[in-house]
C-alpha cells in the first residue's frame, strides 16, 4: 500500500511539473501580447514584464477590417469544409459497409490505395492550379488534400459495420424504402457519434490549415487567419530589415513586437474557448482513431 501511495505522489509531482512546462510557452505569448512595446524592446519576451499594456490589441482593433476578414474566411472555410467533408465521407463509407454490395471490395481498395501511393505535391499543385484554376478562390482552401481522406472513410465504414445491424436495413427494405432513404433516414442519424468525432477533427484541420493557403493564395483578400499570421510574421521582419516602404509610411507607431504575439493569441483564442467543452470527445476520438484507423 505504501508503495502505491509513493507511486501516486511521484506521478502527481512529475505530471504537475511536465504539464506546467507544457503550458508555459502558451503563457509566454499571452503575457507578451499584453506587454508594452518599450518593455519588450528593453527586456525581450518575458514571463514577468516590466510594464503591461493593451497597445497591441488597440492596434489590432484599428486593423480590425483585415483581421475580421481573415477570421470570416477561416470560419466559412471551416464550416463548409467540415460539413461537405463529413457528408461525402459518410456517403462513401456507407456502401462499403453493405455486405451485399457488389463492388464493396473494389471500392474499399480504391479508397485504401490512396493511403499507399500519391502522385506528389508537384503534380497535385499543377493540376489544381492549371486545370481547375482554383488559385485565389475560396475553393483552394477547401478542396485540395483534406476534403475526403481514406482514414476518415474507413473510420466511418468500421462504425457502420459494427453498429448498424443488417436487420435494420432489411426491414426498411421490406417497408419499401429506397437506398437513398435508408441512408438518410436511418443509417446517417444512427452514426451521429462517429460523425461528431470526425467533424471535430476535420474542423480543427480546416481551422489550422495554412498549407493550402501557402500554395494557392497569393491575393491577401483570400487569406484565412493562419495565412494572415504568416504574412504578419514576414512583414514585420521586412520592416526591421530596413525597407518600410512595403507597408506604407504609417508604421512608425506599429508595436510590432507585441502585435505579433497578440495575433497568435487571436489565432488560438477560439480553440482555447471551445476546448474545455469538447476535450472529452477529443480525447475519445484520439483513441478511436488509433485503434480502428
Amino acid at each position, binding site marked *: 500500500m505504501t508503495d502505491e501511495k509513493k507511486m501516486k505522489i511521484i506521478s502527481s509531482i512529475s505530471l504537475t511539473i511536465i504539464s506546467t512546462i507544457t503550458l508555459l510557452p502558451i503563457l509566454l505569448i499571452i503575457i507578451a501580447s499584453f506587454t508594452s512595446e518599450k518593455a519588450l524592446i528593453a527586456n525581450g519576451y518575458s514571463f514577468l514584464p516590466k510594464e503591461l499594456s493593451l497597445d497591441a490589441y488597440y492596434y489590432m482593433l484599428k486593423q480590425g477590417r483585415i483581421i475580421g476578414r481573415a477570421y470570416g474566411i477561416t470560419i466559412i472555410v471551416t464550416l463548409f469544409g467540415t460539413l461537405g467533408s463529413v457528408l461525402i465521407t459518410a456517403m462513401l463509407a456507407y456502401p462499403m459497409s453493405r455486405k451485399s454490395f457488389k*463492388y464493396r471490395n473494389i471500392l474499399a481498395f*480504391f479508397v485504401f490505395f490512396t493511403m499507399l501511393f500519391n*502522385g*506528389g505535391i508537384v503534380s497535385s499543385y499543377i493540376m489544381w492550379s492549371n486545370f481547375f484554376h482554383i488559385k485565389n478562390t475560396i475553393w483552394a482552401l477547401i478542396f485540395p488534400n483534406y476534403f475526403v481522406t481514406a482514414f476518415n*472513410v474507413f473510420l466511418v465504414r468500421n462504425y457502420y459495420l459494427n453498429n448498424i445491424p443488417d436487420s435494420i436495413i432489411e426491414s426498411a427494405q421490406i417497408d419499401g424504402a429506397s*437506398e437513398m432513404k435508408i441512408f438518410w433516414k436511418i443509417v446517417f442519424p444512427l452514426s451521429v457519434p462517429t460523425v461528431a468525432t470526425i467533424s471535430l477533427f476535420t474542423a480543427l484541420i480546416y481551422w489550422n490549415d*495554412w498549407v493550402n493557403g501557402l500554395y494557392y493564395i497569393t491575393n491577401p483578400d483570400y487569406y484565412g487567419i493562419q495565412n494572415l499570421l504568416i504574412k504578419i*510574421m514576414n512583414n514585420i521582419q521586412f520592416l526591421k530589415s530596413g525597407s518600410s516602404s512595403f507597408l506604407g509610411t504609417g508604421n512608425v507607431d506599429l508595436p510590432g513586437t507585441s502585435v505579433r504575439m497578440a495575433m497568435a493569441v487571436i489565432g488560438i483564442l477560439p*480553440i482555447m474557448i471551445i476546448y474545455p467543452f469538447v476535450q472529452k470527445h477529443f480525447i475519445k476520438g484520439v483513441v478511436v482513431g488509433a485503434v480502428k484507423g
Partner: protein
Amino acid sequence: MINKNERTKKERIKKRKELANTSSLLVIALPGIIYLLINNYLPMFGVFLAFKDYNYIDGVFKSPWNGLKNFEYLFKQDAFMIIRNTLLYNLTFIVLGTIVAISLAILMHELGSSKRVKFFQSSLLLPNLFSWVVVGFIGFAFLNSDTGFINNTVIELFGLEKVAWYSEAKYWPVILTLVYLWKMMGFHSIIYMASIAGIDQGIYEAAQIDGASKWVQIKSITLPMLKPTIVILSLMAVGRIFYSDFGLFYQVPMNSGAIFETTQTIDTYVYRGLMELNDVGMSAAAGLYQSLVGFIVVITANAIVRKVNNENALF
C-alpha cells in the same frame, strides 16, 4: 388475421437477405469517388513531370523531356542531405516519442481516474491543437535574437553569450526534437493510456499479493503487455519514415536559409523547389522518389505487422 399477416412478414424477413441496389449505392458513393479520382488519382499520372524539363510557358504536355537528368542533378546535389535529415529526424521522433509517451501514460495511469488526470491529459494535449504557424510564433518568442526569451532571460541568467538561433544550424536537431515532443507527446500518451487501461487488472492484483513492487509491476507487466501496441505504432511510423511533417520543418525554423543543413527535409525541399525556386522538374523528381520509396517501405512495414499480429495489419 393480424396474426397471420405478422407471421408471413416474419417469414419473409427470414427468407429474404438484405439485397443491395447496386446502382443506388454507387450514386451515394459517387461524390466521394469523384473527389478521390481528382485529388488522389489524377496527380498519380502527373509523375511523368519528374522526367521533363518543365517550364510554365510550354506547360505540362509541351515541356521537353529530359530523361533522368532531374534525378541526376538531385542526387549530385541535395539528395543526401534531405534524405538523411528526413530519416534521422523520424527515427529520433519514433524512439524518443515512444519513450516519452509511454512514461507519461504510465504516470497518468498510476494516478487513477481523478479529475487531476483529466486536467493533465488536457494540458498535455493542448499544443496538439495549435497550427504549426502558431507554434512557429511561439518558437520565435523564445528564440529570436533581439527580443527572444532565451537570449534575454535564460542566457543572461547563466551569464552566457547570446546566440543567433535562426542562423546556427547545429542547435536545430535539438530544438526541432523538443518542439516535436512538446506538440505530440500528449496525443501519443493518450493512445498508450488507452492501451494500459485495457490490461487485465487481475494480473496486477496477483502481482501485488506476491509482493511485487510498483516498479517491478511496471517492468514486468505493463511494458510487456504494451509490446504489441508499441510494435504496431512504431511500424506504422516507420511506414511513413520518408515523409516529414511539413509544418514542423517549414514554420518552426522560420524559413531561414542559414540552417537548411539541419532543417531541410524532403517535404520542405519539394515545396521550395516548386514555389520558391521554380525548379519544377527537380522538385517532381524528389517527390516521385519520396512516393516510390515510401510505397515500398509502407508495404514492407505492413508485411512485418502482419507477421507480428495479423489483426493489426493495415491490409
